[in-house]
């Protein structure tokens, strides 16, 4: 953080990211003195540092209240809205899922797992069997008891050739789920996987009631009961006063109404005029407008999500290593972070793991970046490659994607290389362009661990290995890490994998973005899990309205 404003300033004068830095330091247990010392080292006066810390502590310390109604608007919605967890697509689906259902395990802010419908779990020595003890006394919204049969039914929907699950790749190593007794289940693995509890904490593994086939009006065990669901119009969720979690007073809010406002400007207007209290996907360019408002504020969580340009290594011109290396050296990462992402995010190193992955991010492998901005080197490699020009197919599939491509084009023309950008529509992009055209763009949400992320998008035989990179050592490292229960050894393997990926894969990943949303200042208590919009959509049972 740099504080370059003269005079005294307080907490609210800081940028969103700086405010979050201070708050998270306090949340982690830093003392007032430590945080003030840090602020003064960044150039703040004693008085300013003091008032900043006071403001941050106040923001953290308020007590939750019950009641009220919250309306939230998402950017994507339509007839494809679904309450079937295996088909969840948008973060609106994720949010509705979190209102209605529960997972076996819960992903926490530091991406470790805690108990939810499972109270404890344990693997056997070679990590080929996981046993989950289930919570007793949990009731479905219709009053029936939650048991092992529900879990077996839910988990089996992800297995097999006929499964429609969008997340089946993640659990392909499970050969079957077995019921031990009414409150114990077992996953039998064909390949060891030490990260199974983490995977089961993600969105598509919400537990549904045994035998559910109609997802127009499903019941769950979650903090809110579904009162109305009209795809593409809205859903209404009423508080479940019989919620099983007694660790806190929540769920607090009486009722949630969820709907979509697809137009970016209209969504911000609705928030500013008080018609809604939460809105997903704030255009970073509109952040200052929201910050200037007295009633609303930006809610940004740095994440490992990233927009990327991929050169397919099995097609011309990506099959020429010098070509890819040249382009990698032409990325002005700092500038893209500052201009395109408005500083909300972090610098990327052409591999999928960013600092938001916490302990999984390997500093030694990524800082400084493998391919820093260097036009001379780029020119050398591009010349050596003998490639005269290339065509990049770009669609605005993530905020700022097109701008990133245009910046690369500009740098290319500076060193005399002709990079054509062909703009294509978002509509149908994933089926028609992605992994088909030799150079295309892609966007990934953050996954709960580095291993899962790298396995999905970079493992040699992965269906979504978008740059078609194949490295035997890398694949072997991923498998070894999954079977390794010792964190130190896993970290070492992680480091090597990230280094290999950054050097060899065909991806140009200049930045990791933050999830940038906005909300009324009156809505408080958000967890900050970096996996999806609005703190990983973990908010339903925690947030409250300060009337």
């Amino acid at each position, binding site marked *: 953080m740099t504080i370059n404003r003269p005079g005294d300033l307080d907490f609210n004068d800081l940028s969103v990211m700086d405010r979050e830095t201070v708050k998270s330091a306090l949340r982690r247990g830093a003392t007032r003195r430590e945080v003030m010392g840090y602020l003064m080292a960044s150039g703040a006066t004693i008085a300013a540092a003091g008032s900043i810390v006071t403001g941050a502590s106040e923001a953290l310390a308020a007590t939750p209240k019950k009641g009220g109604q919250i*309306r939230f*608007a998402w950017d994507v919605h*339509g*007839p*494809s*809205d*679904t309450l*079937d967890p295996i*088909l969840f*697509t948008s973060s609106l689906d994720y949010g509705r899922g979190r209102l209605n259902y529960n997972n076996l395990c819960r992903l926490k802010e530091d991406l470790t797992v805690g108990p939810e419908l499972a109270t404890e779990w344990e693997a056997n020595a070679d990590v080929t069997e996981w046993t989950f003890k289930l919570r007793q006394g949990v009731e479905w919204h219709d009053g029936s008891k939650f048991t092992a049969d529900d879990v077996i039914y839910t988990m089996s929907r992800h297995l097999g*050739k*006929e*499964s*429609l*699950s*969008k*997340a*089946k*790749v993640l659990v392909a190593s499970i050969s079957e789920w077995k019921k031990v007794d009414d409150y114990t289940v077992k996953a039998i693995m064909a390949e060891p996987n030490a990260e199974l509890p983490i995977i089961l904490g993600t969105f598509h593994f919400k537990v549904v009631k045994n035998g559910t086939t109609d*997802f*127009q009006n499903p019941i769950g065990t979650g903090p809110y009961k579904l009162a109305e669901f*009209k*795809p*593409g*119009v*809205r859903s*209404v969720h009423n508080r479940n006063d019989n919620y099983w979690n007694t660790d806190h007073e929540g769920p607090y809010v009486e009722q949630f*109404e969820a*709907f*979509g*406002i*697809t*137009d970016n*400007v*209209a969504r911000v*207007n*609705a928030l*500013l*005029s008080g*018609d*809604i209290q939460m809105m997903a996907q704030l255009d970073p360019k509109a952040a200052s407008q929201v910050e200037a408002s007295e009633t609303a504020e930006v809610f940004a969580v740095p994440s490992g999500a990233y927009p990327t340009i991929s050169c397919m290594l099995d097609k011309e011109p990506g099959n020429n290593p010098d070509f890819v290396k040249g382009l990698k050296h032409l990325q002005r990462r700092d500038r893209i972070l500052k201009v395109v992402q408005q500083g909300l995010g972090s610098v990327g190193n052409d591999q999928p793991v960013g600092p938001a992955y916490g302990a999984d991010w390997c500093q030694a492998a990524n800082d400084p970046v493998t391919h820093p901005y260097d036009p001379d080197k780029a020119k050398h490699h591009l010349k050596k490659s003998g490639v005269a020009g290339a065509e990049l197919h770009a669609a605005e599939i993530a905020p700022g994607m097109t701008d990133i491509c245009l910046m690369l084009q500009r740098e290319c023309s500076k060193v005399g290389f002709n990079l054509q950008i062909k703009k294509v529509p978002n*509509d*149908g992009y*994933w*089926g*028609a362009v*992605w992994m088909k055209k030799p150079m295309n763009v*892609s*966007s990934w949400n953050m996954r709960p661990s580095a291993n899962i992320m790298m396995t999905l998008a970079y493992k040699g035989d992965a*269906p*979504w290995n978008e740059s078609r990179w194949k490295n035997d050592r890398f694949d072997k490292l991923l498998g070894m890490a999954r079977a390794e229960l010792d964190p130190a050894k896993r970290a070492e393997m992680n480091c090597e994998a990230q280094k290999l990926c950054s050097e060899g894969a065909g991806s140009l990943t200049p930045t990791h973005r933050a999830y940038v949303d906005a909300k009324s200042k009156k809505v408080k208590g958000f967890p900050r899990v970096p996996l999806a919009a609005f703190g990983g959509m973990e908010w339903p049972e925690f947030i409250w309205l300060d009337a």
Partner: protein
Amino acid sequence: MMSQLVIRRIGIGIILLWVVSVLIFALTQVLPGDAAQIRLGQQATPETLAALRKELGLDIPWYMQYVVWMGNLLSGNLGISAAGGATIESLIGNRIGNTVFMTGIVALISIPLSVTLGLLAAMFPGQLLDRIITTGTLGLIAVPDFFVAIFLILLLAVSLGLVPAVSYLSGTEGFWKSVYVLALPIATLVIVVSAQMIRMTRAGILNVMGSPYIEMAILKGVPRKRIILRHALLNAIGPIVNVIALNLAYLVSGVVVIETIFAYPGLAKLMVDGVQTRDIPLVQACGMIFCCTYVILILVADIASILSNPRLRHPK
């Protein structure tokens, strides 16, 4: 004579519906990807794609899909949305009321308003009032509807806080409350459709004013007001009613931008969503509704012009 016309028109309407359904079906095949591909998006693998295609009935050739769809339709079944699994009836039922409500209110305000203003302009051609009306309407026709909408939002909702910025109805509001919530889209649409109707009313009447029998009336000393209301207006009704009918049809099917900006769940946006998700049953259903709307409104307009003009009743 009149009943013959109606029967013939209904027959043509049915053929038209069939042609439109074939066209829609064929055109959606040209778009890249199918419902399964779009639904799985970035998460598609060949295996899940095949499984979902089978589930949605997309694994058979497109002409067979059309036959299946037609068979369902003839037995009164609109089918299941390929995008999300809800029934088409439930998706459309939610929105048809919304669209009819908004179209109705806009029509109730804009038709009397534009006929009156058009008449006023025609009564005093070239004078100040006429100049204001013609220049004003020309300006409004030139301004795109989303611009009018955003301007009204910024002025009336964000700065002044008089009305809501999004037209979000929870379904429990009474009539006046609904009108209040819909104030901005109604105002925007009234402005957009009235401008055209005003100009057509004025032009239609001034056109008739040049004909010999009006000159005769003027020579006989009939007051201008009486000439316009009794002689010119009745003869100009044909074109005016047709413009009104086209504008009403536009309100039902073409207000995607307004529905998007105000997050108002109506039919037009539903069809666009359907196209984006390659949800053929949904697109077909919307297409049929829009086609019917046009057929019926144009029929009504034609009947009105025949009734107002005896010459059309006896075609040579």
